[in-house]
């Protein structure tokens, strides 16, 4: 198989001392950020991104993806030992994980969580290895109308399928798209929405916004809630690991079901949270002993963790193959690609083979090394949580400022970051979702360019978006998803009134 050969090539790119060392550094940093209260996957990656600015793209992405793996593993530690979900998708893990810790079975719960995250990610990485090249080469035939249709599909599915109030999703998305338009217009060279400010000329940088929206706002929220950290301690012995692993085959159906749900929902945007809950609920529904869920059942840890990580990982598939991120973290990695001078999209597989396959190979390696590392160092990282927050908070603020400044060497960006921090804090409190804003900010320019290029090509005829079967069906699907809440209500009413 061609994919296998390319994967081996990817491993050969990876196997240098420098890259392996960076991987290890990334994993440790990632677990560290994952364990810190309030920080998690996307925040950690955003804050640590500046470390990679001067590296070559392959080393940089390997380190970043390892930070991400580490953060995912670290998140499980806080959910189980401290009952604090680091991320929304770890919420379902606390249902059974924390009761297990209370019963003195923390080591078992942690081993279960790490192992199932490993399995979930592995399934998703296999999917990426064998599907992504095909999708990318298919997408090479895309013209501007097709790309615009796919962007439209991404935006519409957020509005139609998101769980937040529709107008709030719409506000967040429109705001993101508008912010991405600030600065010089790429087609005509005209200035837009700069109001005569020289600093706004450069536009609103995506990463600056992300560091503010996620990093600074989390510090404000954590301070406000004043988390009282009282956790259980855990040391994982080989005996416990062996015990959990021996039980694994009994839960093959749960693991498989959760992996499939995760991969499916991960490819559609914003899926990880839904995936973890769905994985948990389905495991409960199919179980013979429903009552024992929520009281410390190991299956209740397997199901959501597998689904969440399968989904988090498969979110990278559309990012690599189409240049469309499936999650917040994928969006930040995409922002990284642009900083390193790579153009995300299907051409990446042709022009930067070593980069793409190095990344995919690092997913395998990072996952395995991460699992071993996290199993052996849990007590160490759990101790991080006992460091007073008053010491950690200012350090995170400094790291955020370094990150924001380093992107364009502009002091203005640090103020912008603080502004976005306040916006993020307020938005989170009044339930305006931040993910659509992030996605819109990173895709906005390219969506607009695709639209305008299509319009130039068709001399302003909107029918270009239905000009062939492919683009027509994607556009139609996008519109169906956008109006899905309305449509499903109509269907229900039709079913309610017998014909």
């Amino acid at each position, binding site marked *: 198989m061609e994919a296998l050969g390319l994967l081996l090539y990817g491993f050969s790119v990876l196997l240098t001392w420098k890259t392996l060392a960076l991987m290890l550094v990334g994993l440790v940093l990632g677990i560290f950020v994952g364990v810190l209260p309030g920080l998690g996957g996307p925040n950690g990656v955003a804050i640590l991104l500046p470390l990679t600015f001067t590296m070559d793209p392959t080393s940089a992405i390997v380190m970043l993806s390892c930070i991400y793996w580490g953060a995912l593993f670290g998140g499980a530690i806080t959910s189980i030992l401290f009952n604090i979900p680091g991320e929304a998708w770890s919420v379902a893990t606390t249902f059974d994980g924390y009761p297990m810790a209370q019963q003195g079975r923390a080591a078992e719960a942690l081993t279960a969580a790490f192992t199932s995250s490993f399995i979930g990610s592995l399934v998703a990485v296999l999917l990426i290895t064998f599907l992504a090249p095909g999708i990318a080469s298919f997408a090479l035939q895309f013209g501007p109308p097709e790309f615009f249709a796919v962007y439209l599909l991404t935006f519409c599915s957020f509005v139609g399928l998101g769980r937040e109030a529709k107008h709030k999703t719409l506000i967040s998305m429109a705001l993101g798209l508008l912010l991405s338009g600030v600065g010089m217009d790429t087609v*005509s060279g005209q200035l837009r929405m700069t109001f005569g400010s020289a600093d706004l000329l450069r536009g609103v940088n995506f990463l600056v916004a992300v560091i503010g929206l996620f990093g600074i706002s989390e510090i404000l929220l954590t301070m406000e809630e004043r988390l009282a950290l009282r956790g259980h301690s855990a040391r994982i012995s080989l005996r416990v690991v062996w015990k959990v692993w021996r039980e694994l085959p009994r839960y093959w159906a749960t693991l498989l079901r959760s992996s499939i749900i995760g991969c499916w929902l991960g490819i559609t945007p914003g899926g990880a949270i839904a995936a973890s809950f769905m994985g948990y609920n389905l495991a409960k529904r199919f179980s013979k002993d429903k009552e024992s869920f929520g009281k410390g059942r190991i299956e209740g840890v397997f199901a959501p963790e597998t689904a969440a990580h399968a989904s988090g990982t498969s979110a990278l598939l559309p990012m690599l193959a189409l240049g469309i991120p499936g999650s917040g973290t994928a969006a930040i990695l995409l922002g990284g690609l642009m900083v390193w001078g790579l153009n995300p999209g299907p051409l990446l597989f042709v022009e930067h083979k070593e980069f793409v396959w190095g990344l995919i190979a690092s997913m395998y390696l990072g996952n395995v090394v991460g699992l071993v590392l996290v199993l052996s160092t849990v007590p160490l990282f759990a101790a991080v949580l006992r460091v007073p927050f008053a010491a950690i908070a*200012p350090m995170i*603020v400094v790291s955020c*400022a370094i990150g924001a400044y380093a992107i364009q060497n502009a002091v203005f960006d640090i103020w912008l970051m603080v502004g976005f921090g306040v916006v993020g804090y307020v938005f989170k409190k*009044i339930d305006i979702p931040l993910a659509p804003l992030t996605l819109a900010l990173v895709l906005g320019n390219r969506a607009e360019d695709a639209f*305008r290029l299509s319009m130039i090509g068709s001399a302003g005829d909107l029918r270009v978006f239905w000009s062939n079967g492919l683009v027509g069906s994607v556009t139609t699907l996008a519109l169906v998803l956008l109006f899905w809440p309305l449509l499903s209500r109509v269907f229900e009413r039709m079913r309610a009134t017998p014909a």
Partner: protein
Amino acid sequence: MSQNEAGSEPLCSQSTVERVVLLLLLALAALLAYDNWRTGMSWDTDGPQAGYFPFYLSLILGAASLFGLIRQWVAHRAPEPTFVSRAAFRRVLQVFIPTLLFCFAMQWLGLYVASFLLVAGFMRWVGHIATWKSVLTAFVFSALMFVTFQIAFDVIMPKGPLEALFGL
């Protein structure tokens, strides 16, 4: 949590903040719509003008904000959830104001000195941690940042008089 402490009375309610935010967004939408209308929001010979896309986006933003406002207006006056209590808001300011001061100080003193002051000050006065621990932690952290970014990764940060003294 903040339920049974002094100062837990609400500072403002969820819906008040939401209303203010929606009004601000509406104003922003109007401003951006005007600016893009001025740039040109119609069709040229070669397709849409520069202001076309953002103009309609600001209309969407405005409409969604207006919808939210109207929904708030007609909503039932159920017991309103608190946006933030006084005590909690004080804690938010405890981290927000030092952050602002840090951003100001950084422009004159350079990032590393400002970071030392922020970490040491925050640990000492907000965290009530012993002075020597605070100063030591802050020094080690700032030095570590300097070594990581300036020396190992070659990322240049704003510098001030102290660095100039050492000829950096």
